């Protein structure tokens, strides 16, 4: 009627949006009403305003009252079809058992990995959370200027070991501090009860320990424990070890720690849970520590970790300033002296000492301050990354396999569409199928988690247990992961499959293959990920092998390390001497020596000034048998000799020390490490070839050996070399001699090579984790490749038949079928190589000073191995297809 007005169209964008969300049966009348109003407005208010109003009122239709009507109808259709989807999915899984297995296997391993990582991260987060007062408890830390690294960008040393007197002082003088306890762990002493004699690990604490922390007392009460100094609190395991079924309370036990003393058991405490930063087995009052009085008096002695509990409403800034006052009051003067005496000039604005504190739940992840169980949050990230990689590989399997098998679903899709299925419904159907598969994988994955948890705990050095609550959490994590991966992996295939046009599919176009072009990049990605893992773990393995097989400069085989159990006294030296005399006639014992500390059992490092220059050196007490027992090579000079009295103060130095001192003729030098003002210092009688007394993470450092008991120390550790012919017999003999000589002292021993290997335990663990996940990743991706190659070969059966008829031989067909996989693998490798090189050199190798070089053959070898594996995987199908008689495949044409 009014043609000139109908030409003006309302804005289409708003309408298009509305059409998407509006139920179709309502849409027409709504659109009509909108247009009608638009036409009216056009007359009344003009084009611009009319458009404006139109968009406004169209958008107002995006409201629940309209949109929700929509969803109702969709769920309605869906519920009808669900049973059908389920049936079809089940049939499909059954029909293609092998592909379903590949998918479910990959997904379940990926899910299991993810769930384990989730458990790990959960465990890290829950550390120390079980203490009721966790937010009031703080660990006090010292931050002090470190003259040994004065030229570093951060010249401060941070440590949790502080003065012994601080805890009682804080509790007494600061109003904010409600409780305070010291916590010294790790000292070992001999325990005796009746005929039971063992060395045990002691932990020295204060009375407040039992009030502050939520470790439950099974016997005894926090108020009455540790009133007397001769009391001891045990964990149930220790109690049963000594007292069996008897009631331990009130029993007396003898502890030999630089002198015997009797203690009464007054409490039994539950063992610390695995998620506790504080661990203990036997608790003693702090006053029983060796040299307690001396430590209390000396504010320059940092050796006692301290925890305080602040009052509910304490102000942390006030607390901090009060701590500064404590420093001024007790060691202010001393610090000024140190500043003046320091070997290097200390900047005036640098504080000599400062106290800092960390709230208990943060202690576990504060990696810059060393603590027994401290952890690096980076581990969670790396583990999570590995899990994600595996998950990705499994998802790629699913996608590429469903794309390649899509040919067989074409007819189904066509028929469904003809019967009236919407595209949406098909997408739902295929997503539903992948979800079913994912749920099956979840069940298998949960089983795998339970199966692998013990080994996972071992790898990660954790004690995760599955409780009801953690299983529930795991289930929720697993379910959400399953939903995400199911939908993610299913989204592309379902989108792709639902795209088929029924007419072309049902017309009978079976001869043409459907090519899903997306599979190739997926395979490349998958292969690249596996290659990355292969190269990384081969590199780790090489470094590990390098470390364990490297010549350390001494002979660590068949050497027993035995603590003398006589403490830091002259007695220790006598034990070594006595043992040596007794062992002289033994054919199974080669030599006996003593030292202040064996490798990886601690060290002493002294700092001093020589001619105004700051020097430092590692120091080991030794005896004349030290060099021979360990097979250390003497380059110049001679060994110690007990018959030369002057040797008691002579030193044998290593090459690094000679370099450090810039000596040209070391045997004519004196090493003035005690800063003697009168004498010239210790005479250098020998130079040994550099050997790795430190871990391979560190370089050769200046070191010297000495027999000077008063300045260097006593031979607290005995090194016994046994004959290589029969190590067990040697060990037995050593044990017998020990029992004969010291029947009242426990015989503890380790092997030197094991001690040394323990330095690299964490690397070993990471290598195992990496190796395991690489194994799984390779397995999953090879299975995927196997499936893919199989489908590919089947797709080309006819082609190959024709080629054979035309005269192609086995080799040609073999190459034809495998060529593309080789190309894909090569592309993948060239992507993965730089990535893994970067990862290895940036993250892993930087920890070591002595490292195996990154060479091209590593990459070549990994690539060769990977290619061979891929080739072996795909060849099975290629050969199978190539061997088929062409008559078989072509006779139906």
């Amino acid at each position, binding site marked *: 009627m009014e043609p000139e007005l109908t030409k003006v169209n309302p804005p289409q964008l708003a309408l298009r949006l509305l059409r998407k969300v509006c139920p179709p049966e309502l849409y027409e*009348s709504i659109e*009509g*009403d909108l247009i009608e109003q638009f036409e009216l407005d056009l007359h009344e208010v003009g084009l611009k305003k009319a458009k404006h109003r139109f968009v406004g009122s169209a958008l*107002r239709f995006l409201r629940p009252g309209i949109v929700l009507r929509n969803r109702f109808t969709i769920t309605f259709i869906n519920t009808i079809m669900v049973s059908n989807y389920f049936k079809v999915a089940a049939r499909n899984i059954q029909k293609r058992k092998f592909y379903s297995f590949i998918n479910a296997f990959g997904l379940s391993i990926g899910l299991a990995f993810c769930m384990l990582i989730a458990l790990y991260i959960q465990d890290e987060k829950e550390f120390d959370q079980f203490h009721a007062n966790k937010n009031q408890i703080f660990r006090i830390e010292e931050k002090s200027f470190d003259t040994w690294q004065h030229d570093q960008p951060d010249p401060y040393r941070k440590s949790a070991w502080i003065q012994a007197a601080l805890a009682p002082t804080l509790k007494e003088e600061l109003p904010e501090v409600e409780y305070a306890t010291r916590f010294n762990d790790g000292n070992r002493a001999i325990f005796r009860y009746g005929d039971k004699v063992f060395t045990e690990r002691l932990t020295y604490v204060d009375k407040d320990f039992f009030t502050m922390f939520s470790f439950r007392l099974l016997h005894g009460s926090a108020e009455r424990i540790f009133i007397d100094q001769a009391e001891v609190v045990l964990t149930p395991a220790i109690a049963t070890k000594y007292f069996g079924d008897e009631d331990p309370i009130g029993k007396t036990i003898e502890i030999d720690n630089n002198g015997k003393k009797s203690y009464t058991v007054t409490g039994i405490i539950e063992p610390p849970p695995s998620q506790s930063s504080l661990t203990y087995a036997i608790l003693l009052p702090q006053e029983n520590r060796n040299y307690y009085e001396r430590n209390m008096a000396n504010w320059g002695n940092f050796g006692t970790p301290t925890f305080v509990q602040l009052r509910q409403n304490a102000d942390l800034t006030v607390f901090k300033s009060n701590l500064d006052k404590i420093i001024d009051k007790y060691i202010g003067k001393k610090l000024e002296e140190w500043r003046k005496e320091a070997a290097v000039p200390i900047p005036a604005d640098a504080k000599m000492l400062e106290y800092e504190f960390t709230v208990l739940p943060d202690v576990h992840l504060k990696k810059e301050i060393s603590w027994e169980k401290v952890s690096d949050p980076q581990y969670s990230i790396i583990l999570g990354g590995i899990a994600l990689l595996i998950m990705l590989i499994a998802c790629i399997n699913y996608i590429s396999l469903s794309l390649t098998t899509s040919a067989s679903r074409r007819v189904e899709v066509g028929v469904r569409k003809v019967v009236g299925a919407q595209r949406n419904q098909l997408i739902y159907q295929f997503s539903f199928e992948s979800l079913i598969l994912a749920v099956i994988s979840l069940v298998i994955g949960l089983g795998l988690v339970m199966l692998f948890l013990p080994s996972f705990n071992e790898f990660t050095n954790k004690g995760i247990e599955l409780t009801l609550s953690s299983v529930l959490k795991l289930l929720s994590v697993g379910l959400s992961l399953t939903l995400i991966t199911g939908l993610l992996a299913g989204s592309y295939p379902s989108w792709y499959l639902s795209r088929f046009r029924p007419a072309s599919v049902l017309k009978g176009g079976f001869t043409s293959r459907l090519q899903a072009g997306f599979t190739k990049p997926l395979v490349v990605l998958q292969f690249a990920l596996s290659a990355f893992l292969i190269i990384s773990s081969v590199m780790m393995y090489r470094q590990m092998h390098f470390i364990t097989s490297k010549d350390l400069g001494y002979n660590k085989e068949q050497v027993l390390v035995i603590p003398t159990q006589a403490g830091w006294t002259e007695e220790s030296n006598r034990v070594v001497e006595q043992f040596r005399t007794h062992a002289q006639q033994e054919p199974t014992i080669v030599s006996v020596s003593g030292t202040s500390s064996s490798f990886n059992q601690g060290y002493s490092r002294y700092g001093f000034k020589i001619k105004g220059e700051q020097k430092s050196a590692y120091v080991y007490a030794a005896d004349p048998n030290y060099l021979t027992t360990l097979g250390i090579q003497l380059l110049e000079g001679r060994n110690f000799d007990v018959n030369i009295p002057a040797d008691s103060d002579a030193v044998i130095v290593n090459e690094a020390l000679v370099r450090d001192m810039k000596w040209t003729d070391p045997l004519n030098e004196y090493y003035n490490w005690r800063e003697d003002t009168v004498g010239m210092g210790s005479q250098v009688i020998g130079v040994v070839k550099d050997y790795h007394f430190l871990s391979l993470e560190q370089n050769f450092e200046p070191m010297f050996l000495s027999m000077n008991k008063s300045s260097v120390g006593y031979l607290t550790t005995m090194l016994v070399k046994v004959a290589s012919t029969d190590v067990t017999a040697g060990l037995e003999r050593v044990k017998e001699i020990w029992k004969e000589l010291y029947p009242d002292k426990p015989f503890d021993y380790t092997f030197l090579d094991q001690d040394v290997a323990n330095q690299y335990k964490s690397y070993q663990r990471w290598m195992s984790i990496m190796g395991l996940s690489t194994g799984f990743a390779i397995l999953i991706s090879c299975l995927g490749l196997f499936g893919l190659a199989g489908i590919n070969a089947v797709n080309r059966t006819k082609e190959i038949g024709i080629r054979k008829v035309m005269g192609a031989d086995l080799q040609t067909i073999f190459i034809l079928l495998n060529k593309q996989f080789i190309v894909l693998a090569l592309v993948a490798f060239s992507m993965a190589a730089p990535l893994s090189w970067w990862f290895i050199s940036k993250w892993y190798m930087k920890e070591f000073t002595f490292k195996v070089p990154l060479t091209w053959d590593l990459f070549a070898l990994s690539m060769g191995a990977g290619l061979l594996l891929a080739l072996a995987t795909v060849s099975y199908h290629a050969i199978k297809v190539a061997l088929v008689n062409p008559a078989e495949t072509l006779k139906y044409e």
Partner: protein
Amino acid sequence: MKKEYLGEFEELVLTMVGILQEDAYGNAIVNEIKERVGRNCNLSAVHVTLYRLEDKGYVKSSMGGATNTRGGRRKRIFTITNAGLAMLRAMKEARVDLWKLIPQLKIGSV
């Protein structure tokens, strides 16, 4: 015994459907309300209310014939059902009954 209630806006829309008879569709109701009550209301609100009334069984709807205006889109014509009519009547009576109970004040008194 559960009794259905109508909201104020629902009652208004239902009344308009009753008034407009075979010309009761979304836009017409919006304009009718504007004309008679002087109240601006949103088209989408009217639509949603109409569908709700339909769910409750007070109106029923059918598509009208195509026209040349409104871009050729058909109208959805709503008609009031007996139940709707009864509901309106019941509400009116209840209100009149209540109104009678209010002491009638003279205009002008405070």
